[in-house]
């Protein structure tokens, strides 16, 4: 924390043996992690301590032991100064239905200390950047979930913070809305220059969005590394084929054909739709051609061939640190299938 003049080099968030204990629960257990600028994913199952960590980092809840700094400011003593430069998007619904997005965001800008004129200008800019146009003058009660999430994001960005905490921003969104929100989160850093700490219980959705992923479980740090480290392993393809008269079990036939061609195949028995899905390790572009040719030679119909998104999950599955991480990976497996449809 020595030098704040070069923001790029500075650690945005640093915790040191941070613990939070409630009478019956330990929410955080000696968590030490350094987070730099960029988009950082904070991943963990529900109850892993993500929200607790955000509360402590906002200076709203004192840590039981250990210390933490945000933007070089100690959370225990400089809470108000931190909150001036940080934005927060809560997980739950927090919008009054009877005011418009503009009214709410202007008010929240003033609550961050912006003078009235600046509050109005920043509100117009921010709502446009998150993709709210004419509807911003209508009461929020009539908005879709996706629009509400954008209003929540806008109020977190309106005072041009240096860092935003986004708590489960994709919750309740359909796959398209989720992809849009993830793209928007990416732009918050690349276009707006605002560092992001985004939580999710889904490992897969963060790999494309985040530069860095921190995984917590049971209040302890499982792993903290950049997303390129996570996804360096080769891609996994999911393939599903139809049956034909000559090959009553098309999946098995393809499995054998691919084995013969030297492609590494696992059955997707651990996943829903087991028996119909083949998972194979894609060495490169040529694997796609191999699969296409194998399917064509057998005369089967190719139902789908897609990249699986659970590479990160598998990294953790290998480590098998706790039952919780395997559980998280299981959740992710379902998630990936959900996306396939």
């Amino acid at each position, binding site marked *: 924390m020595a030098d704040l003049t070069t923001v790029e080099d500075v650690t945005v968030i640093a915790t040191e043996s941070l613990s939070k204990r409630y009478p019956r629960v330990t929410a955080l257990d000696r968590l030490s992690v350094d987070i730099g600028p960029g988009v950082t994913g904070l991943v963990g199952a529900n109850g892993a301590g993500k929200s607790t960590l955000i*509360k402590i980092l*906002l200076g*709203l*809840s004192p840590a039981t032991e250990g210390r933490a700094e945000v933007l070089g400011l100690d959370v225990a003593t400089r809470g*108000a*100064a931190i*909150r*001036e430069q*940080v*934005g*927060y998007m*809560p997980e*739950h*619904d*927090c*919008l*009054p*239905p*009877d005011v418009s997005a503009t*009214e709410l965001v202007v*008010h*929240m800008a*003033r*609550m*961050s*200390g*912006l*003078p009235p004129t*600046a509050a109005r200008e*920043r509100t117009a*800019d921010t709502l*446009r*950047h*998150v*993709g709210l*146009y004419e509807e911003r003058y209508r009461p929020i009660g009539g908005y879709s979930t996706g629009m509400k999430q954008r209003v929540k994001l806008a*109020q977190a960005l309106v*005072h*041009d913070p240096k860092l935003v905490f986004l708590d489960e921003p994709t919750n309740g969104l359909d796959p398209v809305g989720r*992809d*849009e929100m993830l*793209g*928007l989160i990416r732009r918050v850093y690349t*276009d*707006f*220059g605002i560092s992001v700490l985004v939580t999710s219980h889904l490992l897969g959705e963060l790999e494309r969005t985040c530069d860095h992923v921190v995984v917590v479980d049971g209040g302890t740090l499982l792993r903290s590394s950049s997303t390129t480290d996570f996804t360096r392993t080769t891609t996994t393809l999911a393939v599903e084929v139809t049956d034909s008269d000559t090959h009553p079990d098309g999946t098995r036939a393809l499995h054998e054909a691919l084995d013969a061609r030297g492609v590494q195949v696992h059955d997707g028995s651990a996943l829903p739709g087991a028996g119909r899905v083949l998972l194979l390790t894609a060495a490169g572009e040529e694997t796609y051609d191999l699969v296409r040719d194998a399917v064509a030679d057998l005369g089967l119909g190719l139902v789908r061939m897609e990249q699986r998104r659970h590479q990160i999950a598998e990294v953790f599955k290998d480590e098998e640190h706790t039952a919780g991480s395997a559980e998280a990976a299981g959740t992710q497996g379902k998630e990936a299938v959900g996306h396939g449809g």
Partner: protein
Amino acid sequence: MAVEHPLAPPGEESRIHNIGYRGYDGPRLGRAYIRRALYSQSLRGAYGLGRSAKSKVLPMLLFVVMCVPALIMVAVAVATKMKDLPVDYTRYALIMQAVISLFVAAQAPQSVSRDLRFKTVPLYFSRPLETSDYVRAKYAAMASAVFLLTAVPLLVLYVGALLAKLDFADQTKGFAQGLVSVALLSLLFAGIGLVIAAVTPRRGFGIAAVIAVFVITYGAVSTLQAIAGVQDSDSVGLWFGLFSPVTLISGVQTAFLGASNSFPEIEGPTAAQGVVFLLVTLGLIAGSYGLLIRRYRKAAL
């Protein structure tokens, strides 16, 4: 990046998308500014300003209802050249207490329950302001709204009295005593109303609960006092007055602010007894503030 602005709807909107993100280098005003901004927004909100037309109807109507009797009294006093106003300054708010209770019942939930019910509170407390800033701004705004409601009719009476050329010194003293009385009343009513509203996030329940506390306690206390008075146990009856906001104010102003006794069938408090009334009133105001702080500490995130 294949699509530069994936969120942009097609069509005419697209032309403005090339304005890149602009940061904000302007001033970030501190907690005092934020408190003032929240205060003025809440005070305006109590009269429906900056809200929908529908929300203006009730507070404005109640404001008019508060002022009309004062205007009529003034008109009568001026026209008939009375020697004194038909009603004391300190008595006016007591006569109109039902209107004041209705105003608090309708506006206190509007001011605090919405933030709790829609869980907007975390949006405030993730910003620089502290719990005490929020509570102070909300409390001050509600008390100011009630003060406006109760002091403006007194001002009407005072201006009318001067127009009717009543004794200046006499009227000014009465007006000042009236203002002190309604200031105390505003703090007490706002505090009780906000506490009840803050623990009943459902708006309808909040309104009902506030009305119940003001009206039922007043009704019960007045009845008990009347019974005590008839049975010649004045001292017992007097202390019943501590259990309703209206009779508390009434006791304080009878003892200290030259108000005529408004208790039914019994004597008003002496100065010594009035100290108890005053202490209970101040205790309730401080207690309301403390309870609000506690309520929002819990709701902070």
